[in-house]
């Protein structure tokens, strides 16, 4: 008993640093945020209890709902693009090609570069008058594209950039998935005379379904956190078309110091993300 008790004490002692971290930097902020949603606070004055005023305001705040629509627009473009490109690149890398290692490293490189650096580079590439992409288009006889100044395509431009930045990570994940598909399935298919597309459609895709599910969830959660790109590139414009939910929450908190209101925005947003992920999981498991 004494030895068991001593072992338990040592165990608690060993996990205590993480427990302290969890309480101080996770649990306390979450609980405080929930409490804050019922208050008005500008950081430097006393907190003022306002009941459900913040929530009432939230449901009437057109800009918040627009930011949610913008975020969903980003996801609708970014997730399929990312999955298709990542899968295609992984499929190619899974074949016998020259300098495979070099291409793997190159595709992964943008993932490890700072998001701020990537965004600033793409901001210059997308420049209407001095951007490299438009200069290229004009040199081959095409017109300039208002990548970041046209409200109908600005978010799509951001989605393309975000795909370029993150696709490398998912290429690696898909590559692992592809390499875990048993070879004997393909051999059996070869015996049956299946075409390349048939093998991909009826063997590869079902076999890597768990990987597709994981990539979809990760992309969705990552996509909902869209902040750096619109913050640096557009500030939420043109005409609030790239204002993401996180950027709006940030502005309310750190530009206007509406801490209580931004906490309520954050809470509702977190709830929405949770619902989306649950629905995704249900739909994918239903398919299986």
């Amino acid at each position, binding site marked *: 008993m004494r030895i068991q008790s001593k072992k338990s004490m040592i165990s608690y002692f060993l996990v205590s640093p993480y427990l302290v971290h969890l309480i101080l930097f996770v649990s306390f902020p979450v609980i405080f945020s929930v409490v804050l949603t019922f208050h008005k606070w500008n950081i430097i004055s006393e907190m003022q209890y306002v009941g459900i005023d913040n929530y009432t305001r939230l449901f009437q705040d057109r800009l918040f709902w627009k930011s949610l629509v913008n975020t969903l627009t980003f996801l609708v473009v970014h997730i399929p693009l990312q999955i298709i490109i990542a899968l295609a690149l992984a499929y190619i890398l899974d074949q016998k090609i020259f300098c495979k290692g070099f291409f793997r490293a190159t595709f992964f490189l943008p993932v490890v570069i700072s998001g701020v650096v990537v965004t600033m580079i793409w901001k210059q590439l997308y420049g209407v*008058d001095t951007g490299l992409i438009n200069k290229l288009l*004009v040199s081959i006889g095409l017109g300039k594209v208002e990548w970041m100044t046209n409200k109908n395509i600005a978010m799509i431009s951001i989605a393309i950039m975000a795909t370029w930045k993150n696709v490398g990570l998912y290429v690696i994940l898909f590559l692992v998935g592809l390499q875990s598909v048993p070879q004997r399935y393909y051999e059996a298919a070869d015996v049956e005379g299946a075409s390349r597309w048939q093998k991909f459609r009826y063997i590869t895709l079902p076999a890597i379904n768990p990987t597709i599910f994981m990539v979809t969830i990760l992309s969705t959660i990552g996509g909902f956190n869209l902040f750096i790109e619109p913050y640096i590139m557009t*500030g939420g414009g043109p005409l609030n078309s790239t204002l993401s939910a996180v950027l709006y929450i940030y502005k309310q908190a750190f530009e*206007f110091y509406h801490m209580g209101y931004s906490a309520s925005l954050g809470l509702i947003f977190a709830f929405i993300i949770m619902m989306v992920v649950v629905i995704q999981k249900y739909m994918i498991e239903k398919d299986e």
Partner: protein
Amino acid sequence: MKRISQYGIYLFLLVILSACSGGKNDRDSILEYWSSNNIGEITFSQKIVEAWNLEHPGSTLKFQPIPEGQSSEEIILAAVVGKTTPDIYSNMWQGSVEFYAKANVLIPLDTLAGFDNFIRDRCDSLTIREITSSDGHIYQFPWKINPFMTIYNKKFLAELNLDSLPETYTEYLNAAEKFKKDLTGDGYIDQWFGNTSVRLVWYQRLFNFYTLYIAASDGLPLIKNNRASFNNEYAIGVFRFLQEIYKQDYFSKEDQTAGQDPFLAGKIASKFTGPWEIEYLERYKPEGFEFDYFPIPVPDDHQGPIYTYCDPKSIVIFNTCREPQLAFEFIKTMVDKKGDLLFLQSTKQLPRRKGLDTIKAYENFFNENQRLQAFVEQAKYIRGMDNCEVITEVFDIITQEYEACVLYDMKEPEKAIADAERAVNILLGNRK
């Protein structure tokens, strides 16, 4: 072994606890002063503090530039929250003062002995009225200004054969039409008459809309008696003027922050800027590059002197200061005539003081720095910022309408200004 581990843990805890101690209570100096991290201001502050400490060995002052961060406003806010503010801080933007004053974080300077006479000796009644908070107290000491003007490339404007410098909207637009060019022949303009930020951050409006509004309206406020007061011909005129500029491609809609400075590179002929540009241009200008300044453009029917936004910065004393009267005595040494001359010499920035051009002691300095003469003249006609706790949100609302009307021509100026007025009144109504 067990004992060694125990003593090791005690020693570790002791080191951590002693490192964590410290702060205001432990310092040797009576007062702490933060300046901005501008090199000139650091030099000035070091000299002033040194002189003070020599004369006041019993009331020494510790100086440091503001700690590094994304912005000085962020650092000050963090210091206020953490109650680690200095006693004295210079470089406080005038627009921020009301926010901190309402939170009772600042000392009302007018409660300090000698303040009234000192401020009346330095500033005119308009400035004093401008810096007086809504509760009737004064929480800031006006320190320095950087008046906005229009800088221009002398060679480019000479080539346009204009009758005079384009100081009115029509003259400016006509000059812009003459200057814009498609240099590469690809059907797109790549030489513009000017440039101003298209970023949708509230403070960028200070460099375009607000400066032009001050010039057009002779310094009318945006907010008066807790209501929007900018729905007038001047704001509408400014929106229309800027809308026309972008419609006709006289300014680029691109940020142009990468690559060489477009003014130095000859891509633009003018821009709205302040005296800080002088030193930068003198250092980096190519051979033969000449520039000068003229006032901000105004409506065609404008009469009288042309006002401008002066980007004012003030000195404040935080409520954590235990010796506010002593702090004020130090501030007086920073901003008396001798202190202002040292400030001019160290920073080439203008003190916010009436009659700058009449003070004999400053004559030699201005004779040696002829480029500043235009700004000294302009300094007679300046406006700062309204005292409004939510001024940043007011500018954000204006920015939304600015984008829709000026940049994307989706609204008429009258509607844009009216919509901005409505939104601001709702915002101010919610503050009651």
